[in-house]
């Protein structure tokens, strides 16, 4: 869910784009009408009547004049056409302003005193505060100009009008030239061709304004219109449904393959949804991987559910794109008019909230909006505010969980795990807030807090565990690929004066992204002596071949493989393969999540794994608590033992 800053920016851009499209359309229509009028009217007819009509509708002028140079008196301009007609045949002196306009300038005036534009004997027609728009226009073989006036004291012409007039001026002059030479067939033919091209372009613009060019589906503007019309047509008590369909993990398709595959998938998805809806339903693509479906007529919820279920099921079937077999799914939210919204925007918003619920809970499912979705959304907004406040107020702390070397009998390092102390002083684990913090862009700030807390924790941990331990800090995939953040983080780690005591835990997702992590950031981390650990190995996307491209220090086997490993031959086989891989690549291997004696016994006796992290040894705790706990729970496994390798190891192995 984007934060409001992004939303505001997107809306501005969309509005701007829509405005531009509307503007271009208006301009083209104006130009076409004027050209058409000039080309089609008989030589004896007034060529200006149609031009004036077009200009009036766009510029809302009160008076208009066409002036041309007088052959016999270049210091004067003659009005050859005007509305009201009484202004025709008046003579204007060619002042500085009109000279500039004759030379090609399009301009608007905000006041006229000193502008030398008043016609002789007609000063009252052009008051000091009468807004005017001037544009050059060649009439046949003579230089001339158009003056559009608005009532004195009224709204003036703006920069948009000037830009529009600039385009009109060029084409109108060309049209007059062609009309002047209409006997010359070639020019007329050229002009007709130009007209036709403009008509095509007008059609294209109209299409672009209402349809998505990739899928050919209605776009955001058109679906809003369609929903509005459908609501207007409803009988009293009538209903309709709006579904918000969002593809799951679509970004990965673009990232892992390329945008042409992503685009082809969107086209295929659009076609598949189309095949599974009724003739009266309307499907639109409103942005990237987001589709909106208007379900009308709506008899009851069961009927809508059957359409949505059909779509969801069909989207789960494989797509064959450019020789690839792709799987996707769509999370869908559904809202009902009038229960959940009176208009398109309200329906889209509630359907979006329901879709977000579906995506958070079970991707590829549908959620129908109800009060609980609304409440959850409000709760999430509350969480967002609280997280921002927590970052501001420094309410994040750091817990540490040891990584224990079961072969040498000593703690080699710790994983730093952030904790949020909420406003009720409850300690909240990352699962409660980390995704939201990432969406809000707060993760970098939190990581910096973790780094600072870890650096301070050495002073508490070192007396017991020795000065050679390392602390691992988790880095999200998005963070790891953020050049600037990573450069700053590396500098901050180096600034602690003990860079080699830090290790960054990255996910498999980071490893498979070659740029910029592998090519730029990883070499810098190596150069600075900062360790690399691949976290949650076995749950993500990495293939063994990708791992050969990366020089990491440590591979952390996900807890899913360690839990009850003594009873699961399949996990045992996978673990052995991972061990071989880590050994071949020279990486240490850490078993995460060991909790029971039986799991420990298996690891000790049937694997070569040295490092274990899990509740068996200690839960994540604040540094001081961990020291106290360790002294009590594992009194023999303290720093003093490290200096006594022979005696200590024997004793410790026995203890384990």
């Amino acid at each position, binding site marked *: 869910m984007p934060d409001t800053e992004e*939303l505001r920016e997107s*809306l501005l851009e969309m*509005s701007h784009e829509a405005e531009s499209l509307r503007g271009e359309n208006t301009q083209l229509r104006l130009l076409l009408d004027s050209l058409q009028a000039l080309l089609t009217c008989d030589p004896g007819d007034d060529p200006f009547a149609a031009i004036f009509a077009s200009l009036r509708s766009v510029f809302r002028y009160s008076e208009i004049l066409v002036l041309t140079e007088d052959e016999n008196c270049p210091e004067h301009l003659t009005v050859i056409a005007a509305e009201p007609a009484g202004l025709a045949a008046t003579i204007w002196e060619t002042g500085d302003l009109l000279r500039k306009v004759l030379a090609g300038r399009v301009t608007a*005036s905000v006041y006229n005193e000193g502008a030398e534009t008043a016609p002789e004997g007609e000063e009252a027609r052009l008051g000091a505060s009468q807004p005017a728009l001037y544009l050059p226009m060649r009439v046949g073989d003579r230089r001339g100009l158009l003056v559009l006036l608005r009532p004195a004291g009224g709204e*003036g012409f*703006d920069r948009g009008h000037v*830009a529009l007039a600039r385009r009109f001026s060029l084409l109108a002059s060309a049209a007059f030239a062609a009309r002047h030479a209409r006997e010359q067939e070639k020019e007329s033919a050229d002009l007709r061709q130009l007209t036709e091209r403009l008509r095509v372009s007008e059609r294209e613009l109209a299409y672009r304004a209402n349809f998505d060019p990739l899928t050919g589906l209605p776009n955001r503007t058109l679906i809003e219109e369609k929903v509005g019309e459908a609501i207007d047509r409803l009988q009293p008590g009538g209903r309709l449904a709006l579904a918000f369909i969002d593809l799951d993990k679509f970004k990965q398709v673009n990232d892992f393959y390329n945008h042409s595959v992503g685009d082809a998938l969107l086209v295929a998805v659009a076609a598949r949804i189309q095949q599974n809806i009724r003739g009266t339903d309307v499907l639109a693509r409103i942005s990237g991987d987001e589709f909106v479906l208007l379900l009308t007529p709506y008899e009851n919820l069961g009927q809508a559910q059957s359409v949505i279920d059909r779509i969801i099921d069909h989207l789960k079937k494989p797509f064959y794109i450019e020789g690839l077999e792709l799987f996707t799914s769509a999370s869908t939210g559904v809202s009902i008019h009038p229960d959940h919204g009176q208009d398109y925007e309200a329906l889209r918003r509630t359907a979006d909230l329901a879709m977000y619920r579906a995506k958070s809970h079970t991707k590829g499912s549908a959620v129908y909006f109800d009060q609980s979705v609304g409440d959850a959304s409000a709760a999430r907004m509350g969480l967002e505010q609280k997280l*921002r406040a927590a970052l501001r107020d420094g309410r994040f702390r750091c817990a540490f969980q040891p990584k224990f070397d079961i072969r040498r009998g000593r703690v080699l390092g710790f994983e730093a795990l952030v904790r949020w102390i909420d406003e009720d002083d409850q300690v909240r684990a990352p699962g409660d807030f980390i995704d939201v913090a990432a969406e809000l862009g707060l993760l970098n700030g939190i990581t910096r807090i973790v780094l600072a807390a870890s650096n301070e924790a050495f002073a508490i941990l070192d007396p017991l565990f020795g000065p050679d331990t390392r602390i691992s800090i988790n880095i999200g995939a998005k963070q790891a690929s953020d050049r*600037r953040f990573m450069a700053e983080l590396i500098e901050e780690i180096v600034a602690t004066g003990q860079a080699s005591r830090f290790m960054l835990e990255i996910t498999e997702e980071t490893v498979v992204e070659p740029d910029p992590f592998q090519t730029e950031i990883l070499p810098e981390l190596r150069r600075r002596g900062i360790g690399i650990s691949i976290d949650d190995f076995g749950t993500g996307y990495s293939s063994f071949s990708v791992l050969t491209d990366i020089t990491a220090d440590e591979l952390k086997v996900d807890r899913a493989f360690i839990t009850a490993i003594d009873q699961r031959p399949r996990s045992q086989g996978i673990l052995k393969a991972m061990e071989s891989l880590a050994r071949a690549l020279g990486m240490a291997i850490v078993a995460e999540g060991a909790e029971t004696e039986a799991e420990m016994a298996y690891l000790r006796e049937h694997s070569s794994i040295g490092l274990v992290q899990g509740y068996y040894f200690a839960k994540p705790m604040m540094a001081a608590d961990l020291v106290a706990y360790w002294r009590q729970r594992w009194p023999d496994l303290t720093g003093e033992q490290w200096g006594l390798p022979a005696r200590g190891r024997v004793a410790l192995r026995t203890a384990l």
Partner: protein
Amino acid sequence: MVVVRSFVAAGAATADVLADLDRNLTEAGLSPHFAYLFYGQVHDDRTLEDWLSRRLPDTAVIGGTTCGGMMSDQQLWGADSIGLLVIEDEAGDYGVAARELGADAAASAEQALRDALEAAGCPGELPELIWIYQAPGREEEVIEGLRRVVGDNCPIIGGSAADEAIAGQWREISSAGTMSDGLVVAALFPSGGVGYAFQGGYEPTGASGIVTRVGFQPSGGEGVVTSSRGRQILTIDNEPAAEVYNRWIGGLLDGKLAAGGNILADTTMTPLGIDTAQTNGVPHYLLVHPETVTAGGGLTTFATVEEGTRLFSMRGDRQRLVDRAGRVAARASANLAGGQASLAGGLMVYCAGCKMAVGEEMPEVAAEVSRNFDGRPFLGCFTFGEQGNVLDRNLHGNLMISALAFGA
């Protein structure tokens, strides 16, 4: 054809710095028609004025002092720098005029604009853009005066001159000389067109309240008094304004409520906002920077507020202020009729308060702007107030960022 170049030099002696600029200007071989000039308060006005009249006698010049240096396509510069952004545009028209704000700042602004149009050789014409630099304090009056001439039919962009310690050492400069309580107006008719953007980097936190009383605001030499708008907010929702505001920002001002005093530095990340316009139901906020807590528990601000206005508690963060500068520059370039590809160079106005908040990451702001201006020449000043156009309305705000892009 529009050519834009930036030149910045730094040093303690004004004459030496100008000699450097002179050399660079000569090497560039340009004949500028229009120039922006910004400098640190330490520099000598008379030396600058002499240099301008000797070196750029036919160039329309606008600018003034900036807080803590400036930024350019090369780097971030210190408080002893002097910078020029010059524009050579044979087919364009540019005119500058200067006036003391005087008793009636709106009337001064109106006359200055008429003079600037006259100087551009375009009396009565609607410019492509109006750019202003003025002494801080009466920005709304100045905009009102300019709007009397052009309404909102063309954008009014600019900044309020700044010094190093909010001690009234700011100056405004034009070819006519320097002033400390004046206004310089430029009317621009560039042949390559312009693009512009005006945005803040702050988001609402959720808290809001209605201004229920503002302080009496003497206006002008005749002491005209109005109680409905001003720069002193006495109460919000009928409670002392400072108390309400302090509650919104989590007690950040606890230590200052009783004694009062300057809170500019404390509140840079937590300004107030006014909902100025809406796009599809999403509000656009104009920022108001609280300046002091008054003895009576009110707040003075850097922008005028009206009774009945809903004030929103806003929040920013450093990274957003860094990123936003680049995005404003990108937006201005994209708004050029020929798009980013037609960009010749640009000008940034970046709030000095934001600069203070961003602190040592300011070089990153300069780099971000440069990247978004595609490495084209630009100059940026740091101001005590920003003027710009939001959804076709010309407004004054605080803690804002504006960018102006010149088309080639």
